[in-house]
């Protein structure tokens, strides 16, 4: 089980926080939400647009959404997660990251799955917290189609 990342540093506090988020996401993939939930703001306006579909808003609903997704994820036996950072923006007390999450399964037939992810973070009492997670799965065919049209 491993987390691979493309590290780009600048704000060390944010860098550490994003690394914790990535570790939390690996645990989430394996059905354990505790570390990921610990990174979230408890604000009434946090939101998640998860890969499982639909959306949830407000800490209580976001927490339920994450716990529900973990139950489904546990059965899928993902064994690894590689985060490919695309861009990170930070200014004062807010930050946003755009990345790809590539989950891999090496038990049985090797498989991979890619999520496109946007996160928004806010510094609360000196500590970065997750405010928003927007993630959706994308197929290799989708990616190939876009690459094709951009090359024309």
């Amino acid at each position: 089980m491993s987390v691979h990342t493309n590290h780009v540093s600048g704000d060390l506090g944010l860098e550490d926080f994003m690394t914790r988020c990535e570790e939390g996401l690996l645990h989430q993939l394996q059905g354990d939400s505790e570390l990921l939930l610990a990174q979230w703001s408890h604000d009434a306006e946090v939101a998640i647009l998860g890969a499982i579909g639909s959306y949830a808003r407000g800490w209580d609903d976001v927490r339920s959404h994450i716990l529900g997704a973990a139950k489904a994820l546990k059965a899928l036996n993902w064994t690894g997660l590689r985060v490919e950072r695309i861009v990170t923006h930070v200014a004062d007390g807010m930050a946003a990251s755009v990345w790809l999450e590539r989950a891999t399964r090496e038990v049985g037939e090797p498989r991979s799955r890619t999520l496109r992810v946007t996160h928004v973070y806010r510094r609360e009492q000196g500590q970065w917290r997750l405010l928003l997670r927007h993630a959706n799965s994308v197929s290799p065919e989708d990616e190939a189609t876009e690459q094709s049209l951009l090359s024309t």
Partner: protein
Amino acid sequence: MRGWLIDCRIQPNPFNQTRREHSMQATTVIPADLQEFMDDVHAKVKGHATRKETEAFLELWSPSPDASIMAAVGGYCVGFDEVSKLLRWVSEQLTFDTYQFETLTVHADQVLATSVGLEHLASAGEGQHTTLRTTHVYRREDPGWKLLHRHAEPLTPIDENQVGGPTSTEESAR
């Protein structure tokens, strides 16, 4: 290298702010100029999706190399040149007649802000309709707010199979 971190502290916030009340009893302070910009974004997305008026939408984007989009078509683009190329292509595919934006939440700070909402699109002819889950990230630049990132794809009901997502035996490069 496709990943980088941008420190985008620019200038202080103007004083004129409005307070938006949400149904969950929380309040988010939204600068008046940000609210005006977000309203303009929704109007221009409508023009892009229903009248192929993509150039007006592109004028609201940050012209910077760190602008990015994860569009409903899939994949992602980084840099204004790629973003504009994709959006011009997308507009040629769209045939919607109506557009409505429903705000779910907004967070704003001095330089960065974000909004999450649902975009309801429909076409009268064949009764085609879809709802997109949409996240926008905005950045205050000179002379004002710009759209820095858009992430959108169709809203779907909860589907536990989706946590597995479309899988592949091969790692795609991008």
